[in-house]
């Protein structure tokens, strides 16, 4: 199993919706909303303003005027907001006054998840029936391929927010498998609307980074700068046009600075990939890290600098070759109770 060390922003947001069953009934929330609206109108009358056009900012200002508080914590001061913002959107209590639950799948424990699975399976059967009908009439099956690359399924957190209850990893993967099965059928276009509820657009190109234009120095030679990091080493590279292929690091020629062949190969990698070995000059400064880390940092810096000299298609090729990504691998920390990051102390029987 792969354990997530890197987390996206979606994972870090605490899912308040699915933390547990609600303590407030729907009627309670409705009452709170009515009280809030009435209170808003009274407040507007008190302040001498028009009750119809009393916005949230006016409410905040009025409360700050009527109840001044010197407390430092902003969340401890008196607040008047719409009940949906104060009471987090959790599931309302699922049973009526007589104790009988509303939903027929309540006693399964995961009512919304199972009802969703039932709905999706119903759609699947629908599509299969439609397909059989078309086959009986000998009509050609529609084979338009959906653009799989441009969309992604909902993540587990997003599904939890949609259903307002906790979804386990197994359940989530089962749901995704069912959706994929539905999409794989040829006549899935009928249920397109239903499927769109669960798929999200992915930004089509990962080229969100701006390519800087070329700068020109005093002699009229075009140049561009780039910065790169690897482990603890940071490097800045300036790539000049109309050069002979000379590369200088911290004022020293690369043959003297990097005696190892592997490091020099890494420096020349971006140039060799684009086929521009003898055409550019490079001057770099690098500090920190070790021999290989410095070489990697300079490689990244020179690849970033070369982006301004090259067409967009070649920039995309460079990205797919792994030249433009920052290498996130760093030294793993030592843990307490162990000798190193992974090595444990020698186990003695007694």
């Amino acid at each position, binding site marked *: 199993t*792969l*354990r*997530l*060390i*890197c987390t*996206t922003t979606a994972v870090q947001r605490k899912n308040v919706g699915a933390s547990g069953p609600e303590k407030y009934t729907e009627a309670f929330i409705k009452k709170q909303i009515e009280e809030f609206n009435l209170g808003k109108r009274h407040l507007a009358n008190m302040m001498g303003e028009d009750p119809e056009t009393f916005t949230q900012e006016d409410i905040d200002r009025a409360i700050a005027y009527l109840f001044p508080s010197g407390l430092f914590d902003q969340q401890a001061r008196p607040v008047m907001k719409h009940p949906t913002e104060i009471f987090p959107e959790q599931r309302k209590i699922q049973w009526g006054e007589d104790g009988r639950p509303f939903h027929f799948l309540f006693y399964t424990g995961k009512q919304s998840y199972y009802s969703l699975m039932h709905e999706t399976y119903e759609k699947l059967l629908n599509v299969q029936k439609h397909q059989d009908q078309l086959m009986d009439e000998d009509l050609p099956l529609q084979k338009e391929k959906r*653009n*799989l*690359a*441009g969309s992604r399924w909902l993540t587990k957190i997003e599904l939890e927010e949609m259903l307002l209850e906790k979804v386990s990893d197994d359940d989530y993967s089962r749901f995704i498998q069912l959706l994929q099965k539905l999409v794989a059928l040829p006549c899935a276009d009928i249920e397109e609307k239903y499927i769109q509820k669960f798929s999200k657009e*992915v*930004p*089509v*190109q*990962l080229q969100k980074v701006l390519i800087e234009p070329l700068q020109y120095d005093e002699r009229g030679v075009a140049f561009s700068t780039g910065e790169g990091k690897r482990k603890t080493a940071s490097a800045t590279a300036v790539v000049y046009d109309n050069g002979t292929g000379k590369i200088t690091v911290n004022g020293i020629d690369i043959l003297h600075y990097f005696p*190892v*062949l*592997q490091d020099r*190969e*890494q420096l*020349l*990698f971006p140039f*060799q*990939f684009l*086929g521009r070995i003898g055409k550019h000059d490079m001057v770099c400064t690098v500090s920190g890290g070790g021999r*290989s880390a410095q*070489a*990697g940092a300079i490689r*990244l810096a020179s690849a970033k600098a070369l982006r301004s000299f090259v067409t967009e298609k070649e920039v*995309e*090729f460079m*990205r*797919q*070759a*792994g*030249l433009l*990504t*920052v*290498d*996130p*691998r*760093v030294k793993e920390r030592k843990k307490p109770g162990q000798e190193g990051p992974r090595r444990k102390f020698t186990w003695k029987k007694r």
Partner: protein
Amino acid sequence: RIMPVRWSRYNPSYLEPEVKTELYQKPLEELTEEEREQMELKAVRPIKAAPPTLSSSVFSDPMISKFTNMMMKSGNKVLARSLMSQTLEAIKRKQLEKYHKAPENEKETIECNPYVIFHQALKNCQPIIGLSNITRGGKTYQVPVPLTDNRKRFLAMKWLITECRENKHRRTMMPEKLSQELLLAFNNEGPVIKKKHVLHKMAEANRAYAHFRWW
């Protein structure tokens, strides 16, 4: 080809980088359906950074770098790399000697490219079937089991290295011994090939227990 070990610092959605320039210079019409889909997928997903051992130059070979890493001791990549280059040089020298001594009609059959010899020798050393220990009712049986590509390559390289480290005279250098072994393996002779045949014979002998395998 390389699988992540336990957990990695990259998000699981990151794809492996593709370094060879020929694939990028192909015009759009020559790509098959699968390649087109892969290109579309690559356009959307983020890609991992290329490792320092990988480069787009003609001289970098993933198999050779894997072998160099296996030969490396305590992180001394400089020494391992120099040993590897000396081995390839030694192979080239021996083959050239043979080439110049051979009569005219045999000159074409002698292979001089050390990379070709290395790849062919590794291929000849790879076992097809392996043995795994399965315990049933207290007794451990050696059951014949199919091997994955990765495992075959790993075993071939491991056997070559252990063979060169142990069965040599104290004074012979590693490059010399390795070049000898590689040339023997290229011609399907030598101790490593013998080891492979022994493993195959054991697997054939234990054929009766093949039904113990449940995967």
